[in-house]
């Protein structure tokens, strides 16, 4: 039985817990041993819910993830053909090594070097997210990609053009045929393939995940940091994903008045300058921080919560305790919280070659 051997490297149980079931040609998994047996079976992609995750929000039964659908989605994600002049792909701004955020960019450059309005967020565990954008303007992952493609400062292309370019290419009709049974290229198939790739960007193997599943333990310092975090941060950065997915104003000074945040979507002045509470998974890799990328380090973020919180009519009440604004923190507390946040880094995800440009 050819599948027994690779499992030598990890327990079968661990393999099942991986968010991907990967059946890679035999030689690759034999841990460096010379083995001439060649298993012709291609890598197989399956959407598996990690045991420490809740049920996903995305209805997978509407868009069952297949190996070919995923491969098509990945090809599209990394292809500049989605932009007007062929120069910008989704992967230009969403880089795997930065958990699909944009490393070292407060704002990102789209086509013709134009700046985006906001900081590029990490893309991970999107199947568990109900709304997208810093302001939650899009309520369905499938509909999301329309925005970067058509935004004049990102890819500046139109949907009819993108689909026509794909239809006329030599490469894509066969890929659509493999994924969906015929080479007809429709908006629905295009968007669903892109979603299949993005849905598989599951980060569930950080040290913290392993701790949650009882597979690893945290050091004394990491535990101290966790206790501080639980006391001071989890009212907003809650649960397995470190966000309650709500929109809040965490007291940043207003730098761009035109970006009113959640109020842009609801037209409600109670929502002025509220932004989505971001997940903190892989947070050590996604600098700079906040919706406009204003903080270059986690130290600066914690200094903000400690001393920088600015009062305003929509400041979140949790950050105003009597006359005290923000979350007072000692230098040691800040250090320990950052030690804990580092346990959210998931190397398996950041280096998973299945998610990389091929």
């Amino acid at each position, binding site marked *: 039985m050819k599948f027994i051997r690779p499992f030598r490297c990890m327990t079968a149980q661990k393999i099942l817990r991986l968010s991907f079931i990967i059946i890679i040609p035999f030689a690759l998994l034999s841990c460096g041993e010379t083995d001439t047996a060649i298993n012709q079976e291609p890598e197989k992609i399956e959407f598996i819910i990690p045991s420490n995750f809740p049920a996903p929000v995305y209805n997978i039964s509407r868009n069952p993830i297949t190996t070919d659908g995923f491969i098509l989605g990945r090809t599209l994600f990394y292809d500049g053909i989605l932009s007007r002049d062929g120069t910008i792909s989704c992967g230009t701004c969403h880089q795997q090594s930065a958990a699909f955020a944009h490393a070292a960019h407060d704002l990102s450059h789209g086509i013709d070097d134009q700046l985006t309005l906001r900081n590029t967020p990490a893309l991970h565990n999107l199947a568990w997210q*109900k709304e997208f954008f810093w302001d939650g303007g899009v*309520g369905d992952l499938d509909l999301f990609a*329309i*925005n970067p493609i058509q935004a004049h400062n990102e890819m500046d292309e139109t949907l*009819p053009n993108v689909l026509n370019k794909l239809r006329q290419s030599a490469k894509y009709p066969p890929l659509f045929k493999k994924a969906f049974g015929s080479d007809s290229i429709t908006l629905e198939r295009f968007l669903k393939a892109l979603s299949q790739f993005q849905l598989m960007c599951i980060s569930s193997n950080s040290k913290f995940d392993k701790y949650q599943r009882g597979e690893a333990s945290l050091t004394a310092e990491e535990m101290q940091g966790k206790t501080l975090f639980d006391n001071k941060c989890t009212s907003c950065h809650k649960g397995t994903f470190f966000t309650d997915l709500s929109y809040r104003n965490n007291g940043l000074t207003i730098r761009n008045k035109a970006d009113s945040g959640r109020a*842009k979507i609801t037209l409600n002045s109670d929502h002025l300058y509220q932004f989505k509470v971001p997940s903190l998974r892989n947070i050590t890799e996604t600098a700079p921080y906040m919706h406009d990328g204003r903080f270059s380090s986690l130290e600066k973020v914690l200094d903000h919560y400690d001393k920088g919180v600015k009062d305003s009519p929509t400041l979140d009440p949790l950050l105003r305790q009597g006359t005290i604004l923000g979350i007072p923190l000692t230098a040691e507390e800040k250090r320990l919280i950052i030690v804990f946040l580092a346990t959210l880094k998931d190397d398996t995800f950041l280096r998973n070659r299945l998610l990389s440009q091929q």
Partner: protein
Amino acid sequence: MKQLFLSYTLRALIVATVFSFFSSCSDDHTTAPDATKTGSIILEFDNVAGDDEFTFNKEYTNAAGEKFTTTILKYYISNISLVTTSGTVYTVPQDISYFLVDESVPTSTKVKLSNIPEGDYKEVRYTVGVDSVRSTMPIEKRQGALDMSGQGKDMYWEWNSGYIFFKMEGSSPAINEVENNFRFHIGGFGGYSAQTINNIKTVTLSMGTTPATVRSDIAPEVHILADILRVFSGNRTIELAKNPSYMFSRSSVDIANNYMNMFSFDHVHNDAAHSH
């Protein structure tokens, strides 16, 4: 078909004469409806400007006395129902009840509905815009007029997912800006998870005394006038000089409350099927 070379009055006169001939003809000979049979009906949305035929780039004057010309005019008509003289309501199946009336696409102004049970219909009801349920449906439920890569390509806000229900653009010398353009992009279905503006409007038009007699061999054409001057007046007079741009904003509600009243029933043409 628009007969642009005839003055509107002359045209109306001819249409009325022809129409009275046909309607009296069908009144006399139409058989009783057979509920087991179906036919079709056409709703023609004829954009007009007051008493004039509406055309792009022609100058009209709005209620505020401002002259303007138009370059884009399109709107969604959806969720159509027909009511018989005895009060029975026939609702077009939702999946095929979305239409984009686009002044630049002549065929789009005639909304053809098929598989309608035979009947004498006296009332038509429809939504201007896209209902909130459809507005949150997954991509596979957005076909035809709702396909953002097809007919619906310029009628969708990708940053705030939702359809633009009504789009009108043009220019006016009254607008005192470098570009004297006006833009009305009106939408808003109420919001995904938090409440926001709702510009979904429903319209009910009575066809008066002559019903539309749908038969397997009669495909009535219901002629509906859409008076675009009413976009600027009614609920609130719009002054382009004050605000030339209405998009996703609270004030967009004023435009929607105006245009919901721009529709009026003109006449029905109970003509033999296949003549259109």
